[in-house]
């Protein structure tokens, strides 16, 4: 993850597809998010840069759909179904994830270990998101 003001954001991301689980009347994904442009970025325990106002995964229900799909705690969500999540308010992020007419959410998430893995294996072709 690199964030230079004025430049396009570049990151090494992983594509995660989560099937929503029906639980009563709600469709749940099994994780919690924190962050947003209207939130206090200094309180985020997962971000490297304490001015990063992106959406982060703060909790994963063990055994839930997100956990099965490969989402991990501390991931930063960059896109949800094509919609950008790096500069959204907290409420907007929640709404994008909980649309009632979608069964599947395709996330692009990034985490530090991804970058390190790419660096180690120089032959891999990383997917970059701008």
């Amino acid at each position, binding site marked *: 993850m690199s964030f230079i003001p004025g430049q396009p954001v570049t990151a090494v991301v992983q594509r995660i597809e989560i099937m929503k689980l029906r639980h009563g009347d709600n469709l*749940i*994904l099994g*994780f*919690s*998010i*924190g962050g*947003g442009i*209207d*939130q*206090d970025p200094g*309180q*985020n325990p997962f971000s490297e840069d304490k001015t990063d106002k992106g959406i982060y995964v*703060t*909790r994963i229900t063990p055994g839930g759909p997100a956990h099965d799909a490969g989402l991990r705690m501390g991931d930063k969500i960059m896109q949800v179904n094509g919609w950008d999540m790096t500069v959204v308010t*907290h409420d907007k992020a*929640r709404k994008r*994830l*909980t649309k009632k007419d979608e069964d599947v959410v395709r996330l692009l998430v990034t985490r530090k270990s991804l970058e390190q893995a790419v660096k180690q294996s120089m032959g891999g072709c990383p997917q970059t998101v701008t």
Partner: protein
Amino acid sequence: MDNESQYSGYSYKSSHSRSSRKHRDRRDRHRSKSRDGSSRGDKSVTIQTPGEPLLDAESTRGEERDDNWGETTTVVTGTSEHSISNEDLTRVTKDLEESTPLECKRFVGPALGGCLSFFALVTPLAFLILPQVLWRDALEPCGTPCEGLYVSLAFKLLVLLISSWALFLRPPRATLPRFFVFRCLLMVLVFLFVASYWLFYGVRVLEPRERDYRGIVEYAASLVDALLFIQYLALVLLEVRHLQPAFCLKVVRSTDGASRFYNVGHLSVQRAAVWVLDRYYNDFPVYNPALLNLPKSILSKKMTGFKVYSLDESTTNNSSGQSRAMIAAAARRRDNSHNEFYYEEAEMDRRVRKRKARLVVAVEEAFTHIKRLHEEEVASSPKHPREVMDPREAAQAIFAPMARAMQKYLRTTRQQAFHSMESILTHLQFCITHNMTPKAFLERYLSPGPTMQYQQQNDRGRQWTLVSEEPVTSALRQGLVFSMRRLDFSLVVTVTPLPFLRLGEEFIDPKSHKFVMRLQSETSV
């Protein structure tokens, strides 16, 4: 016209006794006008400067004084019994030789101004009275308008009199080296004005024996009006113009670096000097020559660090190059004198604190020995007859236990020249009379007070010399530097203008003060 005298007759000596300095501040015109740089046995130097103020620039005089001054300076380093007796001796000799009367020159200016204003005040009355005296019969009588004019004339004269007394009849506190430009200007103006009125009066009224008395009264009334306006002008120029601050003066004492900043208005250099000196006596800690020097042990080690011998006389270039190289090498050599200075300072601090602690304890104990006797206690304690003392005796009684601690403390802080035993006793008596606590008694000794605290009351005045590259009647402006020199130190003044302030406005609606908590919410999806 307003020829205020300048400082002539300037004698100082280099033993830094404060009590005998007051006798040295004499402007003595009766001595010969030769420049006398010889030093006598007690090391006092008299320098006489010529009497005309307009001839020479003060800066050259300052330089010449510098040369003589450097030769005869001695440094008072430690304390010894001998120094006290030396001061007494010099004080006695100074008493003998300075029996000149109080210098009257400082009153010439105000006297002249007083004469002029008296003349100006009497003139309207003279205008009114002269026709009545000289050709009363031929005068046309004038009724009510004249009486109205008489009343207004009387009141205006009264106002002029009172305001002149309030504003201008004050004993001068300083004599300036050159004319005080505004005051001269105003006196010339008044003189010309009154003279021209007299001229017209003589030509138009006295000669043809003017019969229209009402015209004469109106003429006198117009003179008084004009005098009132001139007084208004005087008020503005002399008193009001310099009140609004325009410059910031930085005043630094040359010997120990004590500095202050002051804001002044538009003044000439000499008036600004007087202004600064007024405040010097209140704000600056007293000049203590004994505190100036690094201990000899540190300095001498530095100076004997290396010696340069030039053996080759013919090639001077080489030798100077060699000596420079040697100086550089010596400078690079490891120099530990700062180390010694640091430890010496720490040791000195410790010693001062120790003595101070002993002094405070001794004084506190001494003060517990006496207490104030109230009226009703006199009759109520017949079985414990206590000796009733007045403040002086009480002070003497409790001085003995604290005397030694006080003396040691004063010696350690090198203040013993400023406080004699008599002065300490007087101060103790003063404190006892006014119910002061030991701490209040000690505040005078624990920190060096302003110079005003150590002045003896006398009217002889303090001798200061204004040294400046610009003429001293020029106005203050940015970058001007002048100094006031006294016997063994000088105050250097630098002038900077106050910054121009651009004040903007921002309105804040009281309802706009709103706050929110910082958000850190976590939503589960």
